């Protein structure tokens, strides 16, 4: 089990450059949106955070699949760490989304906001993931069960999206629609830079966290060997 954290520092440097550059672009280069005004700038941080959360959940599910496929225990820690990161970014998505809702429409929460509702469902789901993990004793059983549940989570994402989409305006009036997709070229470039930076940040944190956990485990082994 290699303790060398090779990718972490590289990703951190990229995150630093891309996020710093990206945020500078947001405030000094990207044009102000004609319809929404200055508040549209939240979009540049809210959507990358959301997409990074999805990426972390997907990575967690991939590692879960690898665990079930190969039986190699190291994938359990990788899956758990990825989902942990995903949950943190998920909470950030909900908070930044709420701020955007507040500034755009005066309410802190809107059931008509599809992305936020999906994240709420995912938050419930992955919180249960942690409760599940804490209620099973460490070992291959816990690893496999967590992996299966992580896979269910990643399947739930598109299903929830579909469900909420077909629900449409049935229960809650979608009086508010957020159309940030009508972006000009410079807006899109800015968005991509921040997105790339956020993804690098997410994975830099993932590698750091993983290295820390592995270090913990190794030190415990060492203590047992020496004591």
């Amino acid at each position: 089990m290699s303790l060398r954290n090779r990718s972490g520092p590289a990703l951190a440097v990229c995150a630093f450059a891309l996020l710093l550059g990206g945020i500078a672009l947001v405030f000094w280069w990207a044009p102000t949106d004609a319809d929404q005004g200055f508040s549209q700038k939240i979009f540049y941080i809210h959507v990358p955070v959301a997409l990074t959360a999805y990426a972390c959940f997907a990575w967690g599910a991939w590692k879960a699949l690898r665990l079930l496929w190969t039986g190699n225990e190291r994938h359990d820690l990788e899956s758990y760490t990825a989902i942990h990161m995903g949950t943190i970014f998920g909470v950030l998505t909900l908070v930044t989304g709420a701020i955007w809702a507040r500034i755009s429409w005066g309410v802190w929460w809107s059931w008509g906001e599809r992305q936020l509702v999906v994240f709420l469902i995912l938050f419930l789901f992955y919180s249960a993931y942690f409760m599940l993990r804490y209620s099973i004793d460490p070992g291959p059983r816990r690893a496999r069960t967590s992996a299966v549940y992580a896979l269910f989570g990643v399947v739930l994402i598109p299903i929830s999206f579909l469900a909420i989409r077909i629900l449409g305006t049935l229960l809650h009036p979608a009086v508010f629609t957020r159309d940030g997709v009508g972006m000009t070229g410079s807006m899109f470039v800015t968005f991509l830079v921040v997105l790339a930076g956020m993804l690098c940040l997410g994975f830099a944190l993932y590698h750091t966290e993983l290295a820390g956990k592995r270090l913990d485990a190794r030190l415990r082994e060492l203590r047992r060997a020496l004591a």
Partner: protein
Amino acid sequence: MTTSEKYVTAAYLVVLAVVLLYVVIYSFKMARLSQEIAELAELARARADRNPEREPEQAPVA
């Protein structure tokens, strides 16, 4: 600052806050790990000291 500027700043600050919190948590963790390594190094040294002491006692038997 206008209201919208305040809210936009708040959103970016929340993200920064989480990252900074991570840094804080990690610095505590690093401190704990350093302490752990120091203790283990002490244990290893104690063990290394014990072993050379035993050999001179065993030599006369041979």
